[in-house]
């Protein structure tokens, strides 16, 4: 049975409702108030996120809340285990950083209300609420609604500048997301038909290795992969993420694509713990490996900085899926006590910070130069030293060099590969790191080189914005001091009777 509601569970409701309340107030008041509301919600939301982390950490148990006091299967539960809490905190920190960064770009002019700022600030909050909904949702249909919220908040951000290319990119993104939703919903219908509930905890107790369960989980996984842009579903990502305004790109690449990945983790390790076979998990690993190689090689060939970073996202998403072949049915212990499981989660978090910092740095560079052609970057290192340094630091994390969160994550994936005797994944991680080194170096070499003619900046970039980018990049670096072992915090609230083989 799903147990009982915990004290502090109301924090979960606030984490979802507060950002959406902000959306409502922003729309009602309009004009400059949208930005003001966002700036008020940001610290409050961060405080809620911290409170959730503290509550999970102090009790050593997952938070649970039954909305309307209706227990599952009739009602909908919100749950936050260690994994949810970490993701909630990551989102809160990153959204505050992106919000501070975006102030200069999306300030509302005095007088009439302007389109882009109103849309950006309201949708920033909407993305936040939807992400929190995904991270704490305990019911697969409620999670579907949260995923749709995320899509509707993310798609307009892609086409915020209204150019034809970005409109096309937004439309394609939406079509892929629709495909994902339909597959997910089909799986949910089958699960309800077979087991009479969509609550994750109840399902995990009722589900068996039956064709219906397999088909449902496969359909949902494929749908989520389309939304997460895992190779070969990556086609929509580069134009969408590269075409959006820099703060929106940071939001999309850093956080939005992590939500479907998070749900794949939920499906595989919470809904059907112990059920997946190693052979099936190898498929996800192969797709991840293909994404790493393909994304990195294509990134190397890009002429524009933002596209390069977007293709790097395609590659870095691949790493996330290497955790599945390594954590499913490990030689000993639970999936979540393996190094690879923790490594995968850590990769999601450190990539969030690193990629957000990189997109914001690229945005500042493009603003200063008036373009983002890599060939024309010469001399920018002297003009914007802090920005270029932040770019380099985030690059460390993408390459997997110490000290950085990316290093710890990839080292743990390597450890997992060795421990499980699946050395081929280790090879992929190493080659991916080399290729990432290639494309980061490509940019840095240009940026630090001497310009042929004196550099003329088309716009001044404020020091404050550069500092924000630096702070976000430093978060990715600080994660490098996480211990190189399975995290205790991430294991809070994991089911401990999950392995079918051990039951």
């Amino acid at each position, binding site marked *: 049975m799903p147990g009982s509601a915990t004290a502090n569970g109301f924090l979960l409701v606030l984490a979802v409702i507060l950002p959406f309340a902000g959306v409502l107030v922003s729309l009602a008041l309009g004009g400059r108030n949208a930005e003001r509301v966002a700036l008020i919600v940001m610290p409050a939301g961060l405080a809620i996120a911290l409170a959730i982390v503290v509550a999970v950490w102090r009790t050593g148990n997952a938070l649970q809340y039954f909305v309307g006091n209706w227990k599952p299967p009739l009602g909908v539960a919100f749950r936050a285990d260690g994994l949810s809490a970490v993701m909630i905190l990551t989102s809160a920190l990153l959204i505050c950083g992106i919000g501070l960064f975006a102030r200069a770009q999306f300030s509302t002019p005095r007088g009439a209300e302007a389109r882009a700022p109103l849309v950006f600030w309201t949708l920033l909050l909407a993305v936040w609420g939807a992400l929190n909904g995904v991270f704490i949702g305990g019911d697969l249909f409620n999670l579907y609604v949260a995923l749709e919220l995320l899509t509707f908040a993310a798609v307009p951000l892609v086409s915020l500048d209204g150019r034809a290319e970005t*409109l*096309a990119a937004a439309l394609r993104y*939406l*079509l892929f997301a629709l495909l994902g939703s*339909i597959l997910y919903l*089909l799986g949910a219908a089958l699960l309800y*038909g077979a087991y009479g509930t969509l609550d994750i905890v109840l399902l995990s107790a009722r589900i068996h290795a039956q064709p219906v369960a397999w088909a449902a989980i496969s359909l949902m996984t494929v749908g989520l992969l389309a939304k997460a842009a895992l190779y070969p579903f990556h086609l929509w990502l580069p*134009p969408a993420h590269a075409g959006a305004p820099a703060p929106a790109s940071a939001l999309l690449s850093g956080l939005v694509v992590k939500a479907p990945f998070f749900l794949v983790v939920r499906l595989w390790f919470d809904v059907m713990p112990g059920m997946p076979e190693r052979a099936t998990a190898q498929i996800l690993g192969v797709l991840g490996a293909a994404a790493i190689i393909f994304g990195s090689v294509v990134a190397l060939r890009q002429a524009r900085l933002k596209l390069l970073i977007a293709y790097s996202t395609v590659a870095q998403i691949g790493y996330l899926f290497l955790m599945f072949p390594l954590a499913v049915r490990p030689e000993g212990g639970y999936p979540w006590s393996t190094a690879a499981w923790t490594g995968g989660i850590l990769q999601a978090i450190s990539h969030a910070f690193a990629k957000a910092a990189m997109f914001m740095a690229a945005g500042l560079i493009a603003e200063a130069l008036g373009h983002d052609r890599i060939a024309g970057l010469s001399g920018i290192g002297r003009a914007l030293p802090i920005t270029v340094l932040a770019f380099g630091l985030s690059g460390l994390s993408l390459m997997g060099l110490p000290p950085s969160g990316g290093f710890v994550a990839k080292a743990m994936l390597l450890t997992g590969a060795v421990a499980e005797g699946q050395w081929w994944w280790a090879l992929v991680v190493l080659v991916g790191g080399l290729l990432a080194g290639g494309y980061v170096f490509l940019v840095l070499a240009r940026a630090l080189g001497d310009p042929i003619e004196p550099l003329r900046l088309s716009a001044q970039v404020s020091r404050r914005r550069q500092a924000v980018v630096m702070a976000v990049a430093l978060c990715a670096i600080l994660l490098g001091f996480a211990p190189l072992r399975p995290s205790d915090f991430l294991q809070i609230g994991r089911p401990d009777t999950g392995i079918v083989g051990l039951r």
Partner: protein
Amino acid sequence: MNAATLYGLCSAVLVGLGLYGLIIHPEPLRKILAFNLIGGGVFLLFGVVARRGAAAGFGGDPVPQALVITGLVVAFASTALALALLVRLSSEPGRANLPSEGSGEEPMGGGPL
């Protein structure tokens, strides 16, 4: 075979038909139409599940029925946004279709979408 099973098979065929339309039609409008067709099939599957769960004096399990109502509204919202994007895109000069899969930097061939 009872009516619920019959409509269950019907929903399976609807999903296949919609999928076919999704793959072979290059125009975005027809793709959106195909999505709605598949959606109809998936919702119908929920309806079949609901009908099979008839009990307690109800002709069907009310929970999946309510889920379908929520799903229909969400599907309408997606269609509205997709069509608005499409209309706006088609009013841009020189853009009639989604850019082909191999636009410039993209070395890959096209998938179904």
